[in-house]
Structure formats: structure tokens, C-alpha cells
């Protein structure tokens, strides 16, 4: 590959996403074209049909909730009807329906159905465009991070999103691993690291065994419905309540516009309070006054103490979850060598204080906590695409969860344990459980639970033709083979008869190849349409400017022509062409606008001449 080809690392978050790269050996975040480092993971179809991504989409999320998709990450790669999807549906205001195959999910925005990877792809495409604006050329390769608990389907969904966005996803890595990379661990030290990631919508606790370039995520826990948005909501509730007290019971929750402004202001105040003891919340003309009176303002001071009081239980919950995760992993607080803070909410002094108190040590927070995951992804992309011997930490692709089969009693037997480097091939021997058993059902599963039913079923098949024998006498060899592309082949062989059956399991996000092709083609059409719209808007703006200029010159032209016998038809011709230009604008007819553009320019030149030099008859014209 071209040594100078740009690459990016992307933290595709539930609430916000970040893109980063490495420049001259230094990882750095790429700001958006509007100067922000965080891009909200929000996609919307506005009331005027315009597709919005990022900040613009977030700014109308409350006024247009049914057409605004956020937290697509909660749905990606999930199956329709799963408990996680049912939970998400209760919390999401936009419509979520089953896909054409009935087992995956689609979101409906502005009357159009989107596959979930398509929604994530729109966010990725925005980040890609920001990166391209930064580099001044195309960017096609990326490392993307996902939570450590994501299964193959969810990881495949993220890869599909990258592909739709025009990115080759060279590696998917775990978020806590990425954070640890960015903090520079794994080069010199061997210790257990606890990553506390309190983001906008989710809270993840991960315990990593780090050492000698190995990053082993040994335990994950968290609360997928705890994050910065819950803190914002507390501030909003406080504002709504105090406003109602002051203004004769005006309930701001009934006014979407007011609520949108409150949400934005609450988030701003919360962020400000990480640095300052007080934050002013000033929202002029927030709501209609009672009984037709003038619109009323909101003016409040929020102190850090008040914020801490409002959110005390949320902070307590983070510590309870961290404690439970350590306990489940059998790790004592004293065994943790480092605590890393990740996610914007960990900037809150009260959160840092609680973590410090619980772990009995100062947490690491030397890097911007909301950027650290993307920076780690950029470091990894750099190591993959520009390898320098002995200098870089290179993460290997590993299996995210245990792979195995269901055995008697409904238990799960692991064949390939989590974190095994791929490609790999492993075999286990099993036996029959009944006398003269002639067939056996092989259910291939993925997950962390001992109970088969609590893991994800990847596929199943039946091995027949087993020789008649007493139970336990027949040996059946089960082989799992995972290719470098993550394709899992499972075979079962009766070593006595040689009878063999197999299945190939490919991780899928629910999108078929045909669907993927259709989406890619539609994206191409969409790009062309957008380009046409862009061309129209540019030409419309220019045409309106020329019309305004012609009209501005008109009085002087009429004055000049009044003194002359000549040139009268110039005005009527100009009127005609201006009329046609206006018709074209109103009909949004790009071709017609192009057709009249030149005539409009000629009319303007003529008017300029007439206005400057008088009528043709006066100056020898």
C-alpha cells in the first residue's frame, strides 16, 4: 500500500463518535469541519426531507423524535425479538420493525426503512468526510472500536456499516483495549487494569490483564442504560420543576421546542460544572406566557453541589456496577494496578472522587477521556498499516466470546475459548449418551454462560449414521475451524464409521449480500442526488443574486431609456428572462436554470452598460 495513505481510528459510540489519526508518530483527534471533536451518533430525516447527521440531527432530536435515530449501536447486529432489542424499543421514540428475513431489525425514518448498519454508516461517512477534509484526500482504511462484549454478529454489523460508508475496516478492536493502548500501557508493564467507561448512554467496566503486548479482557460488566444523558435528564427535570413553580405551573415538558433548548442547556451546564463551581443557564423566550402573555425567559444558576445532589444515586450506581464486575471476575480491588477513566462523564469531579475512594488510588486521566478510545484505534491503525519492527504494539484478531456446542443437560461446552487468536483450529471428543444412538444434534453456540440457552445459537446440524453401540462407546470428534476472515467451520465425525457432517457459520449482521449491494447502489444514487441538489442550490443562490442586481439597476436603466427612443425592448426582454429564472427556481428545475443563466448574465451586462453609459441612442449605441 501507499506509505502515505491516510488511515483513521474511529470510536463509534452509542451517543458520540470520534475520529483520530497519527501524525508524525503522535496520535491526534481530527476535528469536524465545524471544529468539534465529538460527532453525535445521531441520524435524522428532517421535516423538509433533508438528511441530517451529527450535531444537526441532535439539535432537532426532541422536536422531531420519530424521525431521529440515536443509539443505533444498541441494535446493530441484534436479532429481532431478543431481550436487548425489546428493551431498546421501549426506550426509542423512532419506529423499529423486523427486517425482510424476520430475524433482524430495521428503523423507519421519514417513511424510509434503514438497516441498522446503514444508520451507523451515515455517522461513519460523516467522520470519513471530516477526515478527508483534514487530509485533503480520500480516506479508505479504518480501525473501528466496539465494546468488549460485542458478539460476532454485532462486530460484523459494524464492519458492514464501514463498508457502506466506503471504508475498509482493517480491524475491529475492543474499546477498553483501545483505551489502554492510548494510555500507553502494554509496553513496559504487566498489571491488571480496570477501565471505567462512563459515556453518553452506557457504562462499561472492563478488567484487562495487560503485559508484553497482550491485552486480555478478562471481565466485562456495566449498565447499558446509564450514561451522561441520565445526568442531563436530572438537570432538565430540576429546571422544568423550578420553572413551573415560578410561572404558574407552565409545564415545559409539553413544549418540544422548549424541551430541546433545555436539553442542550442542561448538557452545557453539566459540562461547565466539571471546571467551574457555578453555571448560568439563560434561555430567553423559552415558552409562551400564560393566557397569551409575552413569552417568558428561564434564568437559573446551577451549582456543582446542586448537580451532585441531583445525580448522587447515578454516581453511586457506577460504583456498585464496578464493584459487582470485580466480584464476578474474582478480582480484588487491591489487585488492580491501574484505573483508567474513559468517557466524557468521568470528567465530573464527583465521579472521579467516587472512583478514587472505591479503588483507593488516583485514577489515570492524563488524556481527554472522550477521545482516548479513538486515539487508541488510531494507534492500532498506524501499527497495522505502517509497521515498524519492534516499535509498535500489534493487536491480533481474537475470538470475542467462547465458541462451543450444547451438550447433555442443556449445558454449553466450550471448544474455542474467548480471546483465542485467529486463525485457529481445535477439536474435542464427545460421546453418545444413549445405547444404540444413531444420530446426534450439534448446536453451535457462542457466549459466556454455562447454560446453552443463555448463549447465542449460530447454527445447528445433525450427524447421522452413527454405528450402533452402547452409550459412551462411540467417539465423535467435533472440530472448530476459524479462518482469518472470521468464518467458522464446524464439523462432526464418527471416528468409527467415518461418517461426517459439517456446517459453515459466517457472522452476519442480518444484511444479506444482495441487500448490501442494493444499499451501496442506493448510496450512489443518493450521492448523485445530493450533488444535483447542491448544484441547484449553488445556481439558485447565484441566480437570485443576479436578479437582485438587475432589479437594483432597473431604476437607473428606466431613467436612461426614458430619454431615448432606443432600447425599450431590453427591459421587456430582461423581464422575460427574470420571470423564467424565477419560474425555474420555484419549480426547482435545474435544467431550466442552466438554460436561462447565460441570458440572465447578458441582461445584467446590458443593464450595467445602460446604467453606466445611458441609453444606446445617447452614446452612439
Amino acid at each position: 500500500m501507499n506509505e502515505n495513505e491516510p488511515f483513521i481510528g474511529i470510536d463509534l459510540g452509542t451517543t458520540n463518535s470520534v475520529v483520530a489519526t497519527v501524525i508524525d508518530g503522535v496520535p491526534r483527534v481530527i476535528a469536524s469541519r465545524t471544529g468539534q471533536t465529538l460527532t453525535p451518533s445521531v441520524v435524522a430525516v428532517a421535516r423538509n426531507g433533508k438528511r441530517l447527521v451529527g450535531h444537526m440531527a441532535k439539535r432537532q432530536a426532541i422536536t422531531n423524535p420519530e424521525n431521529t435515530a440515536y443509539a443505533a449501536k444498541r441494535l446493530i447486529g441484534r436479532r429481532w425479538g431478543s431481550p436487548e432489542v425489546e428493551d431498546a424499543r421501549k426506550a426509542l421514540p423512532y419506529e423499529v420493525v423486523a427486517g425482510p428475513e424476520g430475524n433482524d431489525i430495521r428503523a423507519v425514518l421519514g417513511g424510509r426503512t434503514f438497516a441498522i448498519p446503514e444508520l451507523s454508516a451515515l455517522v461513519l461517512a460523516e467522520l470519513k468526510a471530516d477526515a478527508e477534509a483534514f487530509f485533503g484526500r480520500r480516506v479508505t482504511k479504518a480501525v473501528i472500536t466496539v465494546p468488549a462484549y460485542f458478539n460476532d454478529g454485532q462486530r460484523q454489523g459494524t464492519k458492514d456499516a464501514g463498508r457502506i460508508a466506503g471504508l475498509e475496516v482493517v480491524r475491529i478492536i475492543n474499546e477498553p483495549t483501545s483505551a489502554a493502548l492510548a494510555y500507553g500501557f502494554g509496553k513496559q508493564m504487566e498489571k491488571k487494569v480496570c477501565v471505567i467507561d462512563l459515556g453518553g448512554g452506557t457504562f462499561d467496566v472492563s478488567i484487562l490483564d495487560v503485559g508484553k503486548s497482550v491485552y486480555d479482557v478478562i471481565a466485562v460488566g456495566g449498565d447499558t442504560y446509564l450514561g451522561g444523558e441520565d445526568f442531563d435528564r436530572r438537570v432538565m427535570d430540576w429546571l422544568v420543576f423550578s420553572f413551573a413553580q415560578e410561572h404558574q405551573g407552565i409545564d415545559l415538558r409539553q413544549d418540544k421546542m422548549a424541551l430541546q433548548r433545555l436539553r442542550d442547556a442542561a448538557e452545557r451546564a453539566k459540562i461547565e460544572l466539571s471546571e467551574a463551581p457555578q453555571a448560568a443557564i439563560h434561555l430567553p423566550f423559552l415558552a409562551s406566557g400564560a393566557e397569551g402573555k409575552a413569552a417568558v425567559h428561564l434564568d437559573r444558576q446551577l451549582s456543582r453541589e446542586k448537580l451532585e445532589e441531583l445525580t448522587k444515586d447515578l454516581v453511586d450506581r457506577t460504583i456498585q456496577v464496578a464493584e459487582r464486575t470485580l466480584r464476578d471476575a474474582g478480582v480484588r480491588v487491591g489487585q488492580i494496578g491501574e484505573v483508567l477513566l474513559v468517557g466524557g462523564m468521568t470528567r465530573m469531579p464527583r465521579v472521579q472522587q467516587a472512583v478514587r475512594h472505591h479503588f483507593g488510588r488516583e485514577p489515570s486521566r492524563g488524556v481527554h477521556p472522550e477521545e482516548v478510545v479513538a486515539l487508541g484505534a488510531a494507534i492500532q491503525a498506524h501499527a497495522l498499516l505502517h509497521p515498524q519492527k519492534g516499535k509498535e504494539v500489534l493487536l491480533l484478531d481474537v475470538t470475542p466470546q467462547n465458541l462451543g456446542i450444547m451438550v447433555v443437560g442443556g449445558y454449553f461446552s466450550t471448544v474455542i475459548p474467548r480471546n483465542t487468536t485467529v486463525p485457529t483450529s481445535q477439536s474435542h471428543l464427545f460421546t453418545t449418551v444413549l445405547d444404540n444412538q444413531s444420530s446426534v444434534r450439534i448446536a453451535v453456540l457462542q457466549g459466556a454462560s454455562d447454560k446453552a440457552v443463555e448463549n447465542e445459537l449460530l447454527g445447528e446440524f445433525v450427524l447421522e449414521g452413527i454405528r450402533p453401540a452402547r452409550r459412551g462407546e462411540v467417539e465423535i470428534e467435533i472440530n472448530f475451524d476459524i479462518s482469518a476472515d472470521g468464518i467458522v467451520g464446524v464439523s462432526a465425525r464418527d471416528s468409527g464409521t467415518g461418517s461426517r457432517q459439517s456446517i459453515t457459520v459466517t457472522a452476519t449482521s442480518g444484511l444479506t449480500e444482495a441487500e448490501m449491494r442494493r444499499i451501496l447502489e442506493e448510496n450512489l444514487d443518493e450521492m448523485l442526488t445530493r450533488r444535483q441538489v447542491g448544484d441547484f442550490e449553488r445556481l439558485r443562490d447565484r441566480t437570485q443574486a443576479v436578479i437582485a442586481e438587475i432589479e437594483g439597476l432597473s431604476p437607473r436603466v428606466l431613467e436612461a431609456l426614458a430619454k431615448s427612443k432606443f432600447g425599450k425592448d431590453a427591459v421587456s426582454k430582461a423581464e422575460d428572462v427574470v420571470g423564467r429564472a424565477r419560474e425555474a427556481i420555484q419549480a426547482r428545475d435545474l435544467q431550466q436554470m442552466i438554460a436561462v443563466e447565460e441570458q440572465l448574465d447578458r441582461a445584467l451586462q446590458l443593464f450595467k452598460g445602460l446604467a453606466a453609459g445611458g441609453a444606446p441612442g445617447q452614446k452612439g449605441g
Partner: protein
Amino acid sequence: MATVAELLDQGVKAYTRGESAEAERFWEQALELDPKNERVRAYLKQVRGELPPRQGAPEPSPEPAPRPEPEPAPRYEPEPAPRPEPTFAPSPWDSGPTEVATVLVEEGTGLDLDAVGEKSDIRSLVPDQKSAAKSPAPGEVAVWMEGARELFALGDFSGSLEMIERILRVDPTHAEARAYLRQNESTLVAMYESKLGPLSGVPRLAIHAEEVMWLNLDHRAGFLLAQVDGTVTLDDLFALSGLPRLDTARILASLFAEGVIR
């Protein structure tokens, strides 16, 4: 005692019945109550024949744009007022009623957003105390429709729109009213947008942030103004506002005209 709005309304009705003297009397009373009301002034000029004829105006098209389909509205001609082409902004060739042109665009004084509220689907917090639309007297809808046509012909698209909305409140399926609604709206949107400049432009606050609270805005204008942060374009504002395009265009045009944004 009748309000300015009621007197205006009674005047329009009288005018559309062909009773110009009666209309003039109502509008004079309205002017006494509100001497600065530009719309009243414009109507009075019209009824008194003070408006000079338009010079060089294009010939009325054989099929005026607002004619509804499939039921063409009967043409109403109480006064021989010339029916202008539905223009989008004052044209130099419509050299006659410059005052009227100004009035049409800078309608009313300050931010007259009541009409916007009527059409917006974002309701205010306080339950609307106004009683539901009364059933009109027989034939009243026809009079309103004639008024709407007449006002449209006069180039008063806002006035025509008010009449249309009144009709649609009692008869939402009125075909001609719906046709006029579309035409009025698209014309008004074009007029207001022509005041905004290129939609790719990024508006900025033209006053100090502390001065904002001294303005006379409603909560919708307050919302839109809060979105003006020096990064969003006018086009983005149309997408963000959540309001119908006409309302957004009207509010932004008013904010520009008031010098609140630039």
C-alpha cells in the same frame, strides 16, 4: 368596540361585496385605532384609488396560478383592480405601488407571528382559550373565499392566507381554498426567502447576547434565534426548526428586518 382586526375584516368583506365606501369607513376607523398600521393604510390607498397603475407589468396570464383544480373558481371582479402576476419579490418593473410592495413584505410592525402560531403544529403550553371556530353564517365562506381571491389579486398574500385559513378551519376539504393556500404559501415563502439572501449563508447575531431578552419575540422565534450560533446555515435552520417552511421563513425574515441577525 370593534378591534383593528375586526374592522379590517369587516372592511375586506364590504370591499369584496363591492361596497367601497363602506369598506373605506371601516378601514378609517381601524386607522384611528392604529394609525401606524401599514396594512390599513395600504387598503385605504387602494380603495381611494391612490395607487398609481402599474407600469410595464406583465399581462395577466390567461390561467392565473391559484386557479384550483379540478374545480376552477369563478373569477370575482368587484372592482376593476388589475390582477397582478403572482410575483415573488418586488420587481422594478412593478414600478407602481412601492409602498404596497414594502407593506407586503414587511407586513405589520415588529414580529407579527400570531398567524404563524395558527398554522404551527407545535402548540403553546397554555391550552388555547379561544373558542372553537364558530359555524359561519350561510354564504360567509363564499365571502371569505372572494376576499381571499381579491386580496391575492391585490398582492396581499398574508391577508389572503388569513382568509384561507379561516375557511379551512370550518371546511378543511375546500378545494379552492386549498389551492389558494398552496399558492399563497409558496409565494410568501419565496418572498420571505428573497429577504434572507443565499440559503447557504450563515446568519449571526447582530446584537449583544444580553440584549436579546429586550426584544419582543415569541417562543418560536426564541427557539430559532437560539439555533443561530455562527455555524448553522439558513438552510440548516429550515431543517432544524421543525416548523413549516413558511413560518421559519417569516420568522427569519423578521429577525433580519429587525436587525437581530445579519
